[in-house]
């Protein structure tokens, strides 16, 4: 069964870029869903089964940190693996993400290979844990 993936980014072009990379990757993709901020992302997460969330950090309404924090506090959502794709280079923020259990961190601009490497690692990690 294919991976059900949610892409959370306020930039439509970034959502389209990641979608295209995943579609061309050869990965077994199930449903791909999209949200423009963390709040919309949480709504999608509660409505659909997801195997992976790929999220930006800087977003209006609810940023990526808040979204991940709420996921970790939610019994249903806490185990969904998250990859962060962001321009953020601050060591403090990277540490904060690691502390929230985010292992996949991809820095913009990225190559398709970097996204795929992160997806493979995070999904493999999650499969090993379950």
């Amino acid at each position: 069964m294919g991976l059900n993936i949610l892409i959370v980014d306020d930039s439509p072009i970034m959502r389209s870029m990641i979608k295209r990379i995943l579609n061309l990757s050869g990965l077994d993709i199930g449903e791909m869903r999209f949200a423009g901020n963390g709040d919309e992302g949480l709504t999608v997460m509660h409505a659909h089964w997801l195997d992976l969330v790929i999220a930006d950090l800087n977003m209006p309404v609810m940023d990526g940190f808040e979204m991940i924090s709420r996921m970790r506090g939610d019994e249903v959502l806490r185990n969904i693996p998250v990859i962060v794709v962001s321009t953020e280079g601050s060591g403090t923020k990277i540490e904060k993400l690691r502390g929230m259990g985010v292992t996949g961190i991809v820095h913009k601009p990225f190559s398709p290979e970097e996204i795929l490497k992160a997806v493979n690692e995070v999904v493999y990690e999650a499969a090993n844990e379950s």
Partner: protein
Amino acid sequence: MKAENLTHTLEATASSVLGEAAFAMVDGPSDWDEPPQLLPAKDMIAARLQFQGPFTGSMFLAAPVTLAHELAANMLGLELDDPEATLRRGDAVGELLNMICGNLLPLIAGNAPEFSIGAPATVDCAAARDMAGAHPEDLRAIVTLIVEDEPVEAALFLDDFPPEAATLP
């Protein structure tokens, strides 16, 4: 920090992002024989964003409409005649600006400080150019790059920039 170092860092960062994210060929000032002629504002798509942190400021990026279309197509892997490239050209300029800013600030201030980078917004290019003229004291770096043979403008404005915040010489 010396102004020329800031300008050079902006030039290098913008060139790198445009090359990596949009697969564009970029020539900077060191490659020119003479400065390129800027296009009329009406032929440009411009984006601006604000940031806050150890120092606050804003950035501006403007690209000719035709180039913005090409950048959007490159970023999305589309043919140039794909209507989605037309739809996404403003967003492409905004996202490239976001990446330039996100990569530039740690080069100026180091990796430790946290910045909050606002969402890029498409703005009127003439107004953005006027801002540079109206607030010369805040304009810390401005560069024109030749991207795929067309001029792209990038500028960095800093409202309150304590010299001790800089890690660059």
